[in-house]
């Protein structure tokens, strides 16, 4: 079974306790009515969908209940690192260092 490290519980926990919650670091526009339809569409639906390192939100639903962020490789499905919600996107060197 895939183990995911919850940064709040500070422990490796079974995948079935977690739910995926989409791409991370997407800021909601503060004034949606000022956006064009094109910009609003981009905010709602357009995601990076990278091949390789992907920043994504997860929730430790059947655990501490908290949302957090993770960097996962979309090719190997391996998690490079997880970090608390609200922290900035880790840099490439931080990710490289954290990768097991």
């Amino acid at each position: 079974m895939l183990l995911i490290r919850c940064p709040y519980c500070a422990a490796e926990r079974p995948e079935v306790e977690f739910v995926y919650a989409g791409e991370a670091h997407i800021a909601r526009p503060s004034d949606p009515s000022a956006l064009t339809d094109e910009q609003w569409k981009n905010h709602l639906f357009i995601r990076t969908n990278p091949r390789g390192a992907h920043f994504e939100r997860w929730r430790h639903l059947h655990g501490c209940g908290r949302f957090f962020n993770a960097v996962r490789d979309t090719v190997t499905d391996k998690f490079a690192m997880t970090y608390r919600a609200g922290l900035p996107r880790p840099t490439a060197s931080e990710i490289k260092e954290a990768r097991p």
Partner: protein
Amino acid sequence: MLQEHRHLEGRRIATQGPGVLRVERIEDCARFSLRVADGNIALASKAFGCDLPRTIGATSDSGARLALCLGPDEWQLLAPLDGRDAIEAKFAALYPKMPHSLVDVSHREVGIVVEGTGATLALRSACPLDLRDMAVATVTRTVFDKAQIILFREGENRFRIEVWQSFADHVWGILQAAGREIELGI
């Protein structure tokens, strides 16, 4: 009020051989879900009459009161039924100076004790956690088959499950099957 319809009442699983496996419903108790910010933990501890643990997974008890830390700002509080109104009143009086949420979930859950040398084996049949890593006196929310449970390791061979009434029969059925397998040695 506690619901009239109570799951698992009077049911018991016991395998032959002393101390192998005993599964039993725990007497009703008062249960609260408490959410409160870091800075007010001391106040909340005083109101409950038991120091709230600050680490996720940690537990503490004082007399018959039990505090389980489930998340960064979340606790499950357990106490004897007769203390329920007093606890609620104590916290209610604190609302003006301590913003918090205290929800009575006494009727929502059933407590099940799983005890014996076969306890971890029985739990492992449907729980994905590595129970060897779980220290005595720690607690966690997790899943048991498809049902969400709170699992509290009270002793090396003694666990307490807290599960919603609606999932209780399901959890019980699996424990029963596991108990039967343990009894037959398969």
